[in-house]
C-alpha cells in the first residue's frame, strides 16, 4: 500500500512538472512575479539580429574634381540595421553626431573637409545631410508615435534619427537614412573617415 502511495506521489510529481499551469491552478493560485521593464537600447545588427562589431557607413567613391560634388551612402541597410528596443513606455530619442562636433572633420592623413558647414549649400567646406528614414516596428502592440526626420548638420547640433513618445513599448528597426556629403572642389584624393556617435536618450 505504501509502495503504491509512493508511486502515486512520484506520478503526481511528474504530471506536475509536465503541466505546470494545471498544477498551479490546482495547488497555488497566488503566485507573484516581478517583470522588470528593462532598459532602452540601440545597436546596429545584421540581418540575423546579431550585433555588428564595428559598424560603419560606406560612401560611394567620387573622383577628384574642380567642382563641388556629392558622395552618398546609406545608414541603416539590410546588413546594418539600427535596432531600437524600447521596453519602457518612455520617450526615446536617437541622434547622430560627430564624436567631437567642434573639431571633427572628414580626415585622410593631413587632408580634411567638414561635415557641418552650410556655407554655399555645403560646397565651400563640406556638409553632411541625412534624409528621413524608415521606422519599422518589429515587436510590441499599438502604433508608436514617432518621427524619423533626419536633417543637415550645422555647427555642433546633432541630427535626429528617431523621436518617439512614450505611448507604447516596442522593438523597431530604423533603416534607409540616405546620407549625402558635399565634397568641396579640388579636395585632395584619399580615403576619408569620420567618427560619429549614435546616442539614444530617454526623455
Amino acid at each position, binding site marked *: 500500500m505504501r509502495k503504491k502511495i509512493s508511486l502515486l506521489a512520484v506520478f503526481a*510529481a511528474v504530471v506536475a512538472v509536465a503541466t*505546470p499551469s494545471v498544477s498551479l491552478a490546482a495547488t497555488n493560485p497566488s503566485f507573484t512575479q516581478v517583470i522588470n521593464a528593462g532598459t*532602452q*537600447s540601440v545597436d546596429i545588427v545584421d540581418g540575423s539580429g546579431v550585433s555588428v562589431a*564595428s*559598424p*560603419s557607413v560606406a560612401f560611394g567613391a567620387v573622383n577628384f574634381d574642380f567642382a563641388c560634388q556629392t558622395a552618398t551612402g546609406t545608414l541603416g541597410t539590410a546588413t546594418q540595421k539600427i535596432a531600437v528596443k524600447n521596453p519602457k513606455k518612455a520617450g526615446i530619442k536617437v541622434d547622430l553626431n560627430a564624436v567631437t562636433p567642434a573639431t571633427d572633420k572628414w580626415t585622410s592623413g593631413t587632408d580634411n573637409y567638414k561635415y557641418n558647414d552650410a556655407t554655399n549649400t555645403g560646397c565651400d567646406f563640406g556638409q553632411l545631410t541625412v534624409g528621413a528614414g524608415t521606422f519599422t516596428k518589429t515587436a510590441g502592440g499599438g502604433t508608436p508615435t514617432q518621427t524619423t526626420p533626419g536633417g543637415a548638420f550645422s555647427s555642433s547640433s546633432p541630427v*535626429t534619427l528617431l523621436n518617439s*513618445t512614450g505611448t507604447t513599448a516596442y522593438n523597431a528597426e530604423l533603416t534607409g537614412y540616405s546620407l549625402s556629403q558635399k565634397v568641396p572642389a579640388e579636395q585632395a584624393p584619399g580615403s576619408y573617415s569620420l567618427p560619429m556617435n549614435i546616442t539614444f536618450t530617454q526623455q
Partner: protein
Amino acid sequence: MKRWMFGAAAGFVLGILGMAAGGILGIVYAQSLSIGGNPAYPRPDNPRSANIFIIELKPGAQGKDGIRISNPTTITRTVNLGAVDSIAAVDGSFSCKQNKEATKEVGKWIKLDKNQITLAPGKEEVVDFTVTVPTGASPGEHGGCITFQDTKSYAKTSGAGIQLGFRGAVRLAVTVPGEIKKELTIVRITTSRNPDGSYMVSPVAKNSGNVSLDVQARAQLRSIFGQKTRILDDAKYPIMPGATMGWPYRFERPFWGGFYKAYTSLSYNADPSSGIGENVSNTQKARKESGYFLMVPAPLAIGIYAAVLLLVFGGPIYWLLRKRKKKSIKKKWQKYTVRQHDTIMSIARMHTIKWKKLAKINKLKPPYELEINQTLLVPAGVTTFQEQTATPAMTKSSTSANQAVTLGEKQSRKTPSPQPTRVNNTQAEQPISRSNLSWELPRSAPQTAHQQPAQQATQFPEFYQSHQPTTYEVPSRGDSWTVPGSEQTHGIIDDPDLVSQLRSVWGETEQNDVLESSPAKKIKPKTSKKAKPTKKSRAKKDL
C-alpha cells in the same frame, strides 16, 4: 509511512518547481542589446521620474541622485559614465552634447561618484552623483544628460566612411526656482506632399518660456465643404526652453482630393508651479489654422473628374464651336455649281482648300461623287488661275449631263471607258495652260486597260489639247491613263510614238513618277527646268 510521505512531499515540491520553471520560461523578456541606464531613485508621485532625472534646486544648493547601469548581455562590460549639457538638435528637439564637448551648465554642475564601472553579465550597479547649482544660476530649467558608453562601443578612428559608436543617455532637468515662465506659440503650419501622395502637416511651435514643456499636439484637416478627417494626436513631446520644434502629421490623400485647411492645437501645462511630469493643473492650448491648400485627388478620381467635366462643358463648347463654324461658312462661303469634268479635287484646288475639308463641309461621302449642276459651298473670294481661265472645267465626256464624276481612287475600273469627247462649251477652245497639265495614273494597270485599242490612245493629244484638264502630267511609257474623276481606264500608253508625240506637245521629259497622297493619286508636275515647256512646244500646244 514516513517514506511514502517523503515521496509525496518530494513530488509536490518537484511539481511546484516545474510550474515555476514553466511559468518563467514562458515569459520572454525584452533583452537589451547593450548597456542600459535608468534613474536609480524615481519618485513614486511622479512616473516621469522613472525615465528622466527631475531635480529642483535653489541656486547654491546641492542634491544627490543616482543612475542604475545594467548589463543585460552575456559578457562582462566596462562602462564609462559622464555628464554633459543638453543641446537642441537641428529639428529643435532635445539632445545631449557629446562627451568630448566642453561643459558649461548642467554637465559642469554634476560630479559622478564613478566615471567607469565594470559589470558582469546580468548585473547592475548604481552610480550616484551630486548636483551643485551655482549661486548665479538663472531661474528656470537647465538641461543636461548622464551618459554611459560601453568601452567596446566607441567609434573606430581609422577606416573609410563613417565609423559609428554607440552611447546611451538619460535626460536630466534641473529646475532653479524663481520666476518660471511657460509660454508656447505656434509660429507656422507647414504642409507638404509626400512622394507617395500623402500629405505632411506640421505645426511648428516656439517655447518662449524658461522651462521645458511636454506638449501634446493635435491636427485635423477640414475641407472647404466642411468634411473633417480624424483628429491625429500625439503623446507628449518635450520642447526645450527657447527651442522651435515641429510635429509632423501624416494625412492620407483623400480619394476625391480638394481644398483643405489644417487645424492644429498644442496643449501644455501652463502652471508655473508644477514641474515636469506633475499633474496638469492648468492646461493651455495654442491653436492655429493654415490657409486652404489643394490635396491632389487619386488618379482614378482625376479621371472621373475629367470625364464629368468633359461631359458638362465639352458638349456645349463643341456645340457652340460647331454653330460658330457653320455661321462662318454660311457667311464667308459661296455657292459653286459643279460643271462637267469637275472633281472634288479640282474644285478644292481651284479654291485653295483641302479636298477633305471641302468634302466635309459639303457632307460628301466616299466615293465623293459629284453631279453636274450640283451646288457646293466653296470659300468666297478665293479663286485660282484655273477658275479664272479654265472655266470650261475638264470633265469626263458623258452622254448624259447628270453622269457621275468620281475620283479615280474610288472608282471601278472594270467599266468600259467611254470615248472622251469635247464638251459643248463656248470656252472649250481656249488654249491649254501648260502649267495645269498632268497625268493621272491608276494604282495598277487593270486588265481592261490592255484591251483598249491602241488607236484610242492616239486621240489623247487632240483630246487634251482641246480640253482644259485640271492637272495632268506628261506620261511615261507603260503608264495607263485615265481621266480624273472617271471610272474608266483608257489604256496603257505603250506606243513610243504616242509618248513622243505627247512629249513634243508638252515639251516634257519622262520624270513624272511621284504619287500624291490623294484620292485621285495624281502625279504633281515637276517644276524642274527640264520640265519647262519650250517655245516650240508651247506653240504646238496653243494650237
